[in-house]
């Protein structure tokens, strides 16, 4: 039986996390279908049809799925589950809510945040903020899984030619009413898929000082992230948080500015290819995981770095 991947999108854009999840699915079985639940999501389904390795795209296009109400999407997934051996979604807030909910509806024990496929029933997942890797084997007849997207490559988004099949709307719950969303607007790349991430911590002192990091990020074509301390202090919104309980990132370059390097923060960025830390405390634990450390006051170092990049 084949693998079903739940696409993540906002009805106008397909998120790259879907491509990582298809790549993970392809390691389980070569037959992969994608489910698109949305409203006016025909373009998204068409894009999914072009992902390499996808056999069929199931498209549920209805107002029911305009917003990601877990209950509604779960009922839809449950209705299709008997055709599949595995159901995968990205380990984003979308997938992390959906998969365990759907799994419980189907009396299945979900497997969270896998970073490796060992075999069709055995997976590796980080536990304890990434301080241990657990290999877990499932005996459920259907495996329901969220995928740590940074651990898998992006499936090719252009070479596929799957057929798109329209599937039925399974109806909306009366329990949950969508009110509104307050989303961070940014021209910068999305944090979890950016090639460069510039993050600030408590050392930034206030939100205005993040403008320095934004400038740096723009120069490098990157995104801006933050530690929990910076989010808690209100310097930046919650969606900037990198870490065990925030977002997991693994860019080519991660620049940590005024961040001490607590294990909960490292959990979200230690798989980055190159880590640079700027910190005025030479004992800061972040230096122990950095490829390049610069023991300097950030208010000196960041403007100097900006000037150097501009002059290059």
């Amino acid at each position, binding site marked *: 039986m084949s693998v079903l991947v739940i696409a993540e999108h906002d009805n106008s854009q397909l998120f790259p996390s879907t491509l990582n999840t298809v790549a993970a699915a392809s390691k389980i079985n070569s037959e992969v279908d994608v489910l698109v639940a949305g409203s006016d999501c025909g373009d998204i389904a068409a894009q999914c049809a072009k992902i390499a390795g996808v056999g069929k795209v199931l498209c549920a296009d209805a107002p029911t799925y305009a917003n990601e109400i877990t209950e509604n999407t779960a009922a839809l997934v449950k209705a299709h589950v008997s055709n599949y051996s595995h159901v995968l979604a990205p380990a984003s807030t979308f997938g992390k809510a959906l998969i*365990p909910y759907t799994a419980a509806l189907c009396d299945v024990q979900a497997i969270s945040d896998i970073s490796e496929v060992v075999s069709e029933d055995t997976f590796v997942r980080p536990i304890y903020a990434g301080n241990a890797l657990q290999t877990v084997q499932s005996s459920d007849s259907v495996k329901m899984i969220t995928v740590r997207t940074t651990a898998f490559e992006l499936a090719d988004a252009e070479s596929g030619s799957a057929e798109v099949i329209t599937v039925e709307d399974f109806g909306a719950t009366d329990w949950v009413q969508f009110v509104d969303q307050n989303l961070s607007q940014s021209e910068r790349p999305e944090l979890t898929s950016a090639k*460069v991430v510039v993050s600030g911590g408590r050392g930034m002192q206030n939100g205005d000082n993040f403008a320095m990091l934004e400038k740096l990020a723009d120069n490098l074509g990157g995104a801006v992230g933050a530690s929990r301390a910076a989010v808690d202090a209100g310097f930046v919104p919650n969606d900037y948080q990198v870490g065990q*309980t925030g977002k997991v990132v693994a860019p080519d370059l991660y620049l940590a500015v005024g961040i001490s390097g607590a*294990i909960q923060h490292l959990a979200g960025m230690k798989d980055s290819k190159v880590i*640079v830390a700027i910190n005025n405390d030479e004992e800061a634990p972040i230096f122990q995981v950095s490829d*390049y450390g*610069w023991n300097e006051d950030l208010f000196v170092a960041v403007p*100097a770095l900006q000037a150097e990049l501009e002059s290059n």
Partner: protein
Amino acid sequence: MKILVPVKRVIDANIRVRVKADNTGVETANVKMAMNPFCEIAVEEALRLKEAGNAEEVIVVCVGPEKSAETIRTGLAMGADRGVHVATDERLEPLVIAKILKVVAEKEGTDLVILGKQSIDDDNNQTGQMLAAIMGRPLGSYISKIESSDGGFAITREIDAGLESLKITSPAVVTADLRLNEPRYASLPNIMKAKKKPIEVMSPEDLGVEVKNRTNVVRVDEPPAREAGIMVSSASELVDKLKNEAKVI
């Protein structure tokens, strides 16, 4: 309104865990334990709802071995009214925990269950979602705000793209994110008072829940270590390294 708060006992967030030499798990012997930080946030929110006159009783429940009673006491010292300890030495999966919590919630007739969004040990981030699904109650995951509204709840959720507001009906199941509140410390008099608060002990069997796991931990490994690199002392040196050595810019 009655609020149930499931709390979990975990290795303290400040401890650096070590994988056991035989690769069966992590070292837990003689390691400092604490209430899961997200559960502290959940207890705090329940207490605030009670203090604001929106709830009459806050019950904390923990599924786990004998020592879990300490975690329940922590909740009682924060201000919860009473405890339920579902005692078991078995390793239980979130689905089994959710089945146990369902029976407890139904027995207690709770209107609201507030869980942590995630345990910082197993990092599953599943139990609340599963509980909502099997109880057939609306789910509010990753909440940073909750208010009683029109007989239900108005909630704000922390999602990857920002914040989302929903209205959900009551009874409901919600999971607490970091910014919901800052939990209080238990005062000494409250710690003393908590010793007299009742904790009811029962087993999963008493609740009619079959303890049957679907997953098996094959092994637990140390992650690959990252080595410290070099220190630089100027912007030009750093840019040079990033360009010519690491080749990332």
